[in-house]
């Protein structure tokens, strides 16, 4: 599906000028990264309410996958910026908030691996940080809409193939990120099981 969407974007749904086709790689990653961070928020609230370790595992997996997608979002954004505006990065509200978003979730992952002590304490601290870090997600969304920005608030896809290429790209990255979260959840569950067995 990812292959088909890339082919559709580059062959049938081309946008003029050529560099704007980079948004077919940029937008799906952006949407899915933000969705992963919504999952982190929901799972963090779920953990704080119920204290069930399953919620913590889902939050951890979604944060890792979201960070990978945010890396793609920032890298493809930088390449687009270089091709369109001639600079790799410029201090605009959207670019700063997207950079900050990546940084916050990298800190979240570092925090997760660096807290020593009982597992419930690690999970609780990370759940609180996951909720605080989410505050930047609406900032990324609204920054280009309400503050004057070099980054456009949205792109219009006029023709059928352009819309299809975009939706296929979003669908492909969404399925891929769901598979990533599922795999990572599985790994973390097995890791916990192994740690419990080692401790007993």
């Amino acid at each position, binding site marked *: 599906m990812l292959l088909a969407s890339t082919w559709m974007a580059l062959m049938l749904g081309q946008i003029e000028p050529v560099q704007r086709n980079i948004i077919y790689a940029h937008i799906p*990653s952006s949407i899915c990264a933000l969705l992963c961070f919504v999952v982190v928020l929901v799972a963090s609230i779920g953990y704080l309410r119920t204290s069930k370790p399953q919620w913590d595992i889902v939050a951890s997996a979604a944060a890792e996958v979201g960070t990978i997608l945010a890396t*793609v979002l920032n890298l493809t954004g930088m390449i687009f910026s270089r091709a369109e505006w001639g600079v790799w990065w410029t201090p605009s509200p959207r670019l700063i908030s997207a950079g900050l978003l990546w940084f916050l979730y990298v800190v979240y992952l570092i925090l997760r691996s660096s807290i020593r002590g009982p597992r419930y304490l690690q999970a609780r601290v990370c759940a609180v940080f996951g909720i605080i870090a989410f505050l930047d997600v609406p900032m990324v969304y609204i920054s280009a809409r309400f503050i004057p920005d070099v980054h456009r608030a949205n792109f219009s896809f006029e023709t059928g193939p352009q819309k299809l290429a975009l939706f296929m790209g979003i669908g492909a990255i969404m399925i891929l990120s769901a598979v990533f979260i599922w795999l990572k959840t599985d790994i973390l569950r097995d890791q916990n099981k192994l740690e419990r067995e080692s401790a007993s």
Partner: protein
Amino acid sequence: MIMFYLCLAFSVLWVVNFIYLFLLDRQQKDIRRRLEARAQH
């Protein structure tokens, strides 16, 4: 040069996602091997 940036953006998308998939696969195989070894003892 513009085509280079276009190819670079799509390469980043593919390479980052597939490296992560590869890493997850390796982690999963490693953890399964450890679980199996523990079950045998």
